[in-house]
């Protein structure tokens, strides 16, 4: 007798899940975008989005050209990184060049430069960087300074007779590829998108259409409805994550130094947090549109902006750093980066894992309770 009632309860649940899967598969547009979007992001970050500065356009102000200034201009022009776009007699046009985005750096050589050098008088070079982009400005200035150093050495001029050789090693990411940093964040984003956003919309749509009520009248219990709704999205999310990882590793050799099992386990944990959030939002909103808005503000926005995915948390002001502590994605990204780029194990990540577990428990309880209350 137990057997019969078990199958009769599993029957509707499975049927329900099948319907949900069909629904997902039929919405070709959304499905295509869900898969294409992260893959495209990986491609962009791998191939197109870089931060190293190439092709610096220099405008040289040379009031009195002579052997020294010509030597300097040649050295500058001969360096791959630079391109001399204009040689001006004075600095008056420099500002226009900057305003029109036609030059990145201006180098102003003092009048009678060569003579001064020969006489041992200070020969001035004024370096003007377009520092609208602060990092860019700093980096460009550093590169120009390096050329000036070489030039000074060539001229036998001093910039210092002592030389401290700085031997730098970039750890975890020798090529400074931004894609390595980005892929863990992308995994979090995909999970959030599918598990939180889509679940919220799907549940609220059923609520709006009234089909949810007919489900409740069926033999399915509320928690079964949630599970049945949520499992297909969980499977979908994890599938896309695997796709992203495959693409990142296959195309860009993004390192995977740690244990795949650990990453997937933590991903599963993070998925649960997102699912709980999605259900909570659906339960607390009254229409599909408000569920969409709520999911956007409550899950996607923090994930994109405050999780450290794109913008480093260390750069944020202190109060904002505090806010990031309640963003689940933030914790997962630390874990994912640790596993993928550093190759560490749970021992180094237990704090973050514990936080995620705590969030899962709290949110799940809140979600189930919210759901029951709304409909009972």
């Amino acid at each position, binding site marked *: 007798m137990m057997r019969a009632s078990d199958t009769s309860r599993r029957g509707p649940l499975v049927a329900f899940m099948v319907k949900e899967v069909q629904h997902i598969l039929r*919405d070709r547009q*959304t499905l295509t975008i*869900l898969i*294409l979007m992260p893959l495209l*992001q990986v491609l*962009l970050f791998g*191939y197109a989005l*870089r*931060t190293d*500065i190439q092709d610096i356009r220099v405008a040289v102000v040379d009031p009195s050209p002579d052997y020294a200034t010509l030597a300097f201009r040649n050295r500058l022009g001969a360096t791959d990184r630079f391109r001399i776009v204009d040689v001006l007699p004075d600095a008056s046009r420099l*500002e*226009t060049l900057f*305003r*029109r985005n036609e030059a990145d750096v201006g180098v102003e050589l003092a009048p009678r430069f060569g003579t001064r050098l020969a*006489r*041992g008088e*200070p020969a*001035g*070079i004024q*370096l003007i*960087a*377009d*520092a*609208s*982009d*602060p*990092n860019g*400005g*700093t980096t460009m*200035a550093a590169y120009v300074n390096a050329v000036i*150093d070489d030039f000074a050495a060539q*001229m036998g*001029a*001093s910039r*210092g007779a002592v*030389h401290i050789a*700085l*031997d*730098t*090693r*970039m*750890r*975890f*990411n020798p*090529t*400074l590829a*931004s894609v390595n940093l980005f892929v863990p964040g992308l995994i979090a984003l995909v999970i959030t998108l599918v598990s939180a956003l889509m679940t919220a919309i799907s549940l609220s749509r059923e609520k709006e259409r009234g089909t949810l009520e007919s489900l409740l009248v069926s033999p399915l219990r509320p928690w079964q409805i949630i599970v049945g709704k949520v499992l297909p999205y969980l499977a979908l999310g994890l599938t896309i994550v695997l796709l992203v990882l495959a693409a990142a590793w296959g195309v860009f050799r993004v390192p995977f130094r740690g244990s795949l099992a650990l990453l997937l386990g933590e991903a599963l944990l993070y998925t649960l947090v997102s699912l709980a959030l999605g259900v909570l939002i659906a339960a607390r909103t009254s229409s599909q549109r*408000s569920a969409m808005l709520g999911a956007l*503000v409550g899950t996607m926005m923090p994930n994109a*902006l405050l999780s450290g995915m*794109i*913008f480093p948390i260390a*750069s*944020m*002001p202190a109060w*904002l750093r505090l806010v990031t502590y309640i963003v689940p994605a933030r914790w997962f990204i*630390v874990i994912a980066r640790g596993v993928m780029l*550093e190759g*560490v194990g749970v021992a*180094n990540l237990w704090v973050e894992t514990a936080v995620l577990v705590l969030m899962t428990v709290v949110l799940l309880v809140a979600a189930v309770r919210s759901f029951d209350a709304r409909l009972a």
Partner: protein
Amino acid sequence: MRTLRFLLRKEYRQIVRDRMMLAQILIMPVIQLLLLANAATFEVTRARLYTVDLDHTVTSRALIDRLVSSGRFELAGSSASMALADAAMLDRRAGVIARIPRDFERNLMRVDAAPVQLILDAKDGAAAAVTRSYASAIVTDYAAELGAARAGGEALALGAPAVAMPHVEVRSRAWYNPELDYQDYMVPGILVELITIAGTLLTAVNITREKEIGTLDQLNVTPVTRAQFIAGKLIPLWSIALVEFGVGLAVAAVVFHVPMRGSVALVVGVAAVYLVAALGIGLWVSTIAGTQQQAMFITFFLMLIYLLMSGLFTPLRSMPAWAQWIAHLNPVMYFVRIMRDVLMKGAGPSDIAPDVGILIVYGAVVFTLAVRQYAKRSA
């Protein structure tokens, strides 16, 4: 035209009564701006430095002191063990390890050269590069100091006057952003992002919603022409996005003290032109989306590409040639550039004329294509 007047009246009435849309229009952008402006920074603040000083001399300690007192580095620990340093890095307690080998001072005295090893946590490659630049500048300055002191000292020791050697004096200027404030650089671009998303998303979802509910069919059967319908939808949304832009500018100026060196009127004018393109894209999305959810997803997908390839977050000129070429087809790129040029550098109409021209062409083309795509009847 009279019909248009009726349609506009209907749209504005609906918008005012739609509390969710009002929230989206008034509150969301402000919140997003506040959050983004604070979050969207790649500024490299102090790196946590772990030192392994195997020399223990005046010189080595002075070097460390130079690093820390520059404000760019913060001492996170020190020991004589690389293993401990390594652990600190793995634990994320330190982002940079500086290792000064034995005989550092002696080598400097004897042969005027000595190495120092720097290990950086380069998971964030861009930040690591900038940190390296800072460290390099500090070390070079220190070396120059040592050299100058040496030259002076030697001269005194020999009892001869200091020889006038040829030397180059370099002065550095950072224009437009002397404080190196990232907000000045990012906020103008964030404003562009906000109204782009707002304009395109609102348009796409709004029209798709009419499709979903069925009022679109109702209108399609009336004498309302395609042009009237589109104008009736887009004009209110365009005006809203423009108002949002104004509000955003005000917040940028008052709260973030973003410089407004150029003409604000000019920037608003360009925004008005730019929005035609942005809304046109939203219109186009509404013709291919069947449900509001699809409209939202498609818009996000497109906006993602537009924003990433616009030079907003990563420098345009760092992209490979083919990517830059694509970016030149992107209206967002032009508007972001115009915003930065006008607000930060004080560019005027003649400076930005070519970019504005392109925006106008873009708007006209996108709009025409979208209108043509939107047919009142399916064939």
